[in-house]
């Protein structure tokens, strides 16, 4: 992992990956959207509203995976003092917050015709809302920390502590059986009929590739800004 500690080496690798991830992601999301909107059958009970599933599931996954990325990068920052770890954690925050928000909004839109309500203080919905607020707090904290090492460490500790919410979100449907349905996709299989389920992995992979492309773009942006700042400081000093 320390092979990529050199920002110039990282940027050389990230440049082609950004383009490839973005291009493949867009193609896969387009395929999944066509499949989800036109090629899959409506649900016998929910009708066509079930089509929201093909964007709601990937956004829920990325809302949680984004914080997983923050937690992993924060761990690398605190334990190995990896020079790119804080940059990686900061780069995950905004896209993670966007997908957590998309998950909440699409879930609310799905809930209105299905449950008869836009919002309910259910375990899954509330823990996801908490995750969104954690993202906002992390973004503010990391922004305030800037390049100061002490502030970056506080942001990293917050990133690790916030990860406690991830298992709470995952197990919320088992711990508090209220409104949100239980787990329908697990590691061993799915309770969704295969005629309806096939666009889900395509959508998850497609949105994940777009997410990775955005994270790489944001990392490169932060590194370029740091480079400009360092150069300006040297020019002012000389």
């Amino acid at each position, binding site marked *: 992992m320390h092979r990529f500690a050199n920002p110039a080496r990282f940027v050389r690798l990230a440049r082609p990956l950004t383009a490839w991830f973005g291009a493949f992601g867009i193609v896969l999301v387009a395929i999944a959207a066509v499949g989800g909107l036109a090629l899959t059958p409506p649900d016998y009970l929910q009708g066509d509203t079930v089509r929201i599933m093909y964007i709601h599931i990937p956004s829920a996954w990325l809302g949680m995976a984004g914080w997983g990325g923050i937690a992993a990068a924060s761990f690398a920052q605190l334990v190995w003092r990896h020079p790119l770890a804080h940059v990686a954690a900061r780069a995950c925050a905004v896209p993670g917050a966007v997908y957590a928000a*998309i998950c909440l909004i699409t879930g609310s*839109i799905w809930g209105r015709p299905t449950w008869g309500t836009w919002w309910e203080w259910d375990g899954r919905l509330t823990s996801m809302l908490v995750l969104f607020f954690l993202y906002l707090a992390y973004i503010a904290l990391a922004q305030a920390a800037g390049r100061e090492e002490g502030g970056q460490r506080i942001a990293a500790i917050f990133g690790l502590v916030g990860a406690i919410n991830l298992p709470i979100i995952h197990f919320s449907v088992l711990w508090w059986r209220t409104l949100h349905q239980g787990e329908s996709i697990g590691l061993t299989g799915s309770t969704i009929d295969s005629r309806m389920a096939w666009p889900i992995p395509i959508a998850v992979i497609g949105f994940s590739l777009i997410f990775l492309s*955005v994270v790489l773009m944001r990392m490169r942006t932060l590194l370029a800004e740091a480079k400009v700042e360092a150069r300006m400081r040297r020019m002012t000093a000389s």
Partner: protein
Amino acid sequence: MSAVLNAWPFVIAAYGIALGATAALFGLSLVALRRAETRADALDRKGKS
């Protein structure tokens, strides 16, 4: 319930928000990257000359 409410306005709104937000996130990140790398390259050239 689908007989009571037409599902499609909900489906279209959800897809519009998800795909629109994804496109905005991707586009804004790309613009910020171009701007930052152009500025860094310009300073590099200035430093070399």
